[in-house]
């Protein structure tokens, strides 16, 4: 276990969080002398403790991954100068590794499918349920149930649906004979879509609940005003409700993007992320967490995924912060 220790040892020294927070507080003293010593201590702890965990649990591993991505470390023994191979991992990843570009493509398809099919379906259901149908609670629960299940369980449930001979779907379709069966999870041109249907089954309910909460918070006076002005249901939603929901819409987009980027469980449950189900996350796992690991190489894929993920994070943060300033 010399590994994490040596990695952390190389992490650039971070400023003492408590000291930094204390400095920020004392900087304000000139203007506000209301803070007593006890207040300052409380403030320092309130800022310092989360900051410490943030650095230790999020930035620490992130920096360690970036660092490891320039090595060929196999997880055994310490890291020495010989392990540093510069950008060789990245060069191989982009030019030689046969599974990288398929994984990128699958992640993009995953994103597009969730964004343009599953998420709109979830939003549509939320709009329907918002209309106080009879039994709306019942429908909400039904659609939300898959969200409560872990993706691992969902993977197993859908494995039973998709099984070649015993599966529900092939039996309904009458395609269980050796010469006509549909190999949902095995055919590399089909299994990605089969997995996406399983994922969407859960994602739709998730988006539905998020969006429904947003819809409930829309001021009813706006709808009434639109109605008085003679707007139809569709016009009311498109012209009035949807723009008012802008903050929720951003959350939905970001959540969907992140769901797509961290897609892992179902592909891994189905077949370990191979044969048409390669995803960046499964490549990381298969390289880094396995017998005689390729930790360095796996880290370089993780860094690529991190870079891709930064896009939606920055979008989300800049959006949130702008709102905070208002």
């Amino acid at each position, binding site marked *: *276990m010399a590994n994490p220790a040596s*990695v952390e040892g190389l992490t650039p020294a971070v400023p003492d969080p408590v000291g930094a927070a204390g400095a920020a507080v004392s900087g304000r003293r000139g203007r506000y002398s209301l803070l007593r010593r006890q207040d300052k201590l409380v403030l320092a702890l309130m800022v310092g403790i989360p900051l410490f965990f943030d650095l230790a*649990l*999020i930035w620490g*591993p*992130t920096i*360690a*991954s970036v660092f490891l991505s320039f090595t060929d470390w196999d*997880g*055994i*023994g310490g890291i020495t100068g010989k392990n540093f191979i510069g950008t060789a991992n990245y060069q*191989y990843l982009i030019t*030689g*590794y046969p*599974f990288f570009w398929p994984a990128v493509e699958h992640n993009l398809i995953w994103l597009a499918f969730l964004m343009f099919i599953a998420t709109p379906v979830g939003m549509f259901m939320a709009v329907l349920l918002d209309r106080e149908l009879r039994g709306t609670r019942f429908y909400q629960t039904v659609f939300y149930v898959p*969200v409560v*299940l*872990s*993706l*691992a369980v969902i993977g197993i449930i859908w494995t039973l649906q*998709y*099984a070649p*001979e015993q599966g529900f779907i092939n039996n309904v379709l009458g395609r269980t004979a*050796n010469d006509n*069966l549909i*190999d*949902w999870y*095995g055919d*590399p041109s089909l*299994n990605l879509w089969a997995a996406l249907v399983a994922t969407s089954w859960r994602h739709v309910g998730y988006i539905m609940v*998020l969006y429904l909460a947003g819809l409930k918070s829309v001021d009813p006076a706006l709808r009434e005003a639109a109605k008085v002005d003679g707007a139809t249901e569709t016009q009311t939603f498109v012209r009035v409700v949807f723009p008012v929901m802008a903050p929720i819409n951003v*959350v939905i987009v970001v*959540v969907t993007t*992140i769901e797509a*980027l*961290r897609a*892992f469980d179902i592909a*891994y*449950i189905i*077949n*370990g*992320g*191979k*044969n048409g189900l390669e995803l960046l*996350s499964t*490549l*990381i796992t*298969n390289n*880094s*967490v*396995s*017998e*005689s690991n*390729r930790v360095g190489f796996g*880290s370089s894929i*993780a860094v690529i*995924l*991190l870079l891709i993920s930064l896009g939606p*994070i920055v979008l*989300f943060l800049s959006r949130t912060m702008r709102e905070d300033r208002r």
Partner: protein
Amino acid sequence: MADPVTPRPALQPAIGSRTVTRRQILGGIAGVAGLAAAPSLIAACSTPAASSAGTSAAPSAAASAAASAAASAGGTVTLGSNYSDPLPKGVLQKAVDKFTSQTGIQVKVNTVDHGTFQNQISSYLQGTPDDVWTWFSGFRMRFFAAQGLATDISDVWAKVSSHYGEAFKVGSTGDDGKQYFIPIYLYPWAVFYRKSLFAAKGYTIPKTFDELKTLAAKIQADGLVPFAFADKDGWPAMGTFDILNLRLNGYQFHVDLMAGKEKWTDPKIKTVFDTWKSILPFHQAGYAGRIWQDASTTLLQKKAAMYFHGMFTSQQFQAAGQADLDDLDFFPYPDFGTQYDAEKALDAPIDGFMLSKAPKNIDGAKAFLEYLAQPATQVDWVSQDRSNIAAVKDADTSGYNSLQKKAAEVIGAAQRITQFLDRDTNPNFAGPNGMQAFLLQFLKSPNDDIGALQKKIQDFWNTLG
């Protein structure tokens, strides 16, 4: 992974949060990015606490070879086990209990799920591993021995070597010529069939590959699937590659190929793929979405006539009942008319035990290994788990069932045995984003350019260094 591996558990828990906060999103992404740094942490969390060798129970008076050797040991031995399926787990526990009653040495078994155990093995062995751990013969044994993560047990071997054939000693020896592994049992890969079905349809056991093809065509004409097949887990197809390569190109070529001394671009490999292609139309469709248990079931249900697989396929028959198990039989893969037929080489993976780098109770652990190498222990073991046969040559085989007797005979007749593709070569090469994927690609499009596939495989090998 030549063993019956149940579906692997997901390593990453799903985050089923109702509302998503900024922090959770950051955490989720950094979690993925940080996954690379995680294996040691995961292992640290799951490594069972090694129990201290505190209590020294007095040795009982039981007389056995192991007991006398261990008379001075005492204490507690810890055992890291990947026997997570109920049947083998129970068999191991019984063996352990018997050892304790004979020697007074306690053995604390820490069982970890099979797939998890394998994925975390290098972190586990570098942390605070148990004294003894379950493992496999082959490259995967030599690899960890060469890394200094196993203890030399040549002294144990000096005591037990009379029980083992030469091949087993070679299979237990590291690159430095010392022994690191105690074989406990093994099982053959062969063509399984139901005697009653063959008798009813008038099929005869093929002696040559041509006869096998003729038989397959006949079976197909009868409306049955000639070969049951499943490759969802990626490793079962490796068995077919192994046997074709062994029989067409010989043991030495296969071993050198696995070690990287021969190239995957060799025309001999093309011959293997071409031969495989000639029998692919006789295979069960939908293989890439099927697990081996389901393929075994089609053989059990007489929908398929033959199944080339490891002997653990019999577990499905054992579960179905004694009559079905008695009806199961197998024959070794037929001859090709090459000079290598005489080798009768086959995959017969050996499972066993190793000693970790710094065992807390080395005397007790060695006594335990010596006990496991006794014919009586192994015979007792395989009398409960009938999909294996004892590794020792002087085992009393009178209690074997007909499958086990035949397995002993077939393995005995083989001049050369190999472990299995993913046990004989670099695990990185054999993994899901490696050879498993390449073989699936071949199976999906056997008519594509084989040369291009061979080059892809060799290029991948080259990058592993």
